[in-house]
């Protein structure tokens, strides 16, 4: 447990000190969303109709942007060897790193989303659902992303390979995340979407660290 907290705190501390990781992700999220009114046109009916999709796709791409930093620095400086040799099971080490990744990327994304919702004319009554859907869904983004990040560790053109691997896996989260916002905007009730979104994240919670740890062991050979 001391190891789990130690690793979680170290990753958070690194994210805070380097700052650029969280900052870049947030800046990308804001810019990507702000581009849409320019491209689609400012009509509230048009924008409001696609807003949920825009906010979720942009959040997904922003989270993707930081995934290559999940294991790569530790892999390059030898820290991953020490983590693998520690009494902390590698599965829990992955979980600690995913938790730190979520706090430094997913959580800030969810927190700035209400401001961006105004930019793309989301129904005001759906803004709460937007934040909640991101809060439930972004841990899933970190967890699923960790598998792809571990699999592509040490590969050339890691970033591109990673996107190709991980984006298809993000589709279910996108469907139910955006679906929840849309249901709230239409007033049909987002409960079913939230439940399915939560189920996806909960399923990823044990499965993804296990798969990532297996991929990391392969990479360390």
């Amino acid at each position: 447990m001391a190891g789990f907290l130690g690793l979680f705190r170290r990753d958070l501390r690194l994210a805070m000190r380097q700052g650029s990781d969280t900052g870049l992700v947030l800046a990308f999220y804001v810019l990507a969303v702000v581009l849409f009114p320019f491209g689609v046109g400012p009509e509230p009916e048009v924008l409001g109709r696609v807003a949920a999709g825009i906010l979720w796709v942009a959040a997904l791409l922003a989270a993707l942007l930081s995934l290559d930093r999940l294991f790569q620095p530790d892999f390059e400086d030898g820290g991953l060897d020490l983590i693998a040799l520690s009494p902390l099971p590698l599965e829990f080490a992955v979980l600690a790193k995913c938790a730190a990744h979520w706090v430094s990327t997913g959580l800030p994304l969810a927190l700035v989303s209400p401001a961006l919702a105004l930019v793309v004319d989301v129904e005001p009554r759906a803004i709460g659902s937007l934040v909640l859907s991101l809060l439930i869904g972004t841990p899933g983004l970190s967890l699923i992303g960790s598998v792809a990040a571990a699999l592509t560790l040490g590969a050339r053109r890691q970033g591109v390979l990673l996107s190709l691997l991980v984006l298809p896996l993000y589709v279910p989260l996108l469907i139910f995340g955006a679906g929840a916002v849309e249901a709230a905007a239409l007033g049909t009730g987002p409960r079913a979407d939230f439940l399915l979104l939560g189920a996806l994240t909960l399923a990823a919670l044990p499965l993804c660290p296990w798969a990532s740890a297996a991929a990391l062991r392969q990479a360390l050979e």
Partner: protein
Amino acid sequence: MLPALTDPTLFRAPAATARPPDLIAEGLVCRRGERLVFAGLSFRLSAGGALILTGANGSGKSSLLRLVSGLLAPAAGRLSWGTIPAAADLAAHHAQLHYVGHLDALKPAMTPREMLVFWSALRGQKLPRSELAIDRALAAFALEAIADWPCRWLSAGQRRRVALARLLAVPAPLWLLDEPSSTLDNDSQDRLEAAIAGHRAKGGMVMLATHTPIALDAAVSLALDAFTPQPDDFDPDVAD
């Protein structure tokens, strides 16, 4: 049969005292990709012993250390603590050892003290107790003055000393050191030798790969070149 295995002193009965079991390697084979790095490698390391790995570049010194650490699985052969195979409980095996490789695993944005606190926590050490050990480890490698600098300011030798301080911050019986002195100055090398001597005096074991001479009493030397497979040893499927 390998010469090392015919040595009658090799398999003598373990002493009756509560010494930690010997680390025994039998017929280890290491394969990286399609290349056979070494084959039929055996050694025995008892409490207080030191094994110096020598050999040309590419003879497998680093591979052997990674293999003993458990990061790399041997293609054949076995590694055991006394009679218990190391692979039977890898977590217990990992708890027995420290591995200091070529990479120092330091984060540019963190200080040496923070790194040592992190590594101690990762190995399950509780904070108030581990802090004393960390102070001692920093002092042993003369790092007090730079303990609170960010690691990005440190030179290669200073970085290596921080990595070596890990050995003293958390006790573990087996030290696996890969070229530990390659970037050290004379004073730091003396400190390393003193740390190793102190560790062995307490019954610790050391496996060390090196090119530069290092002063260790009664160390056994293992020349890895002797285990490099000859071309006709190659499995024909693998050789082409």
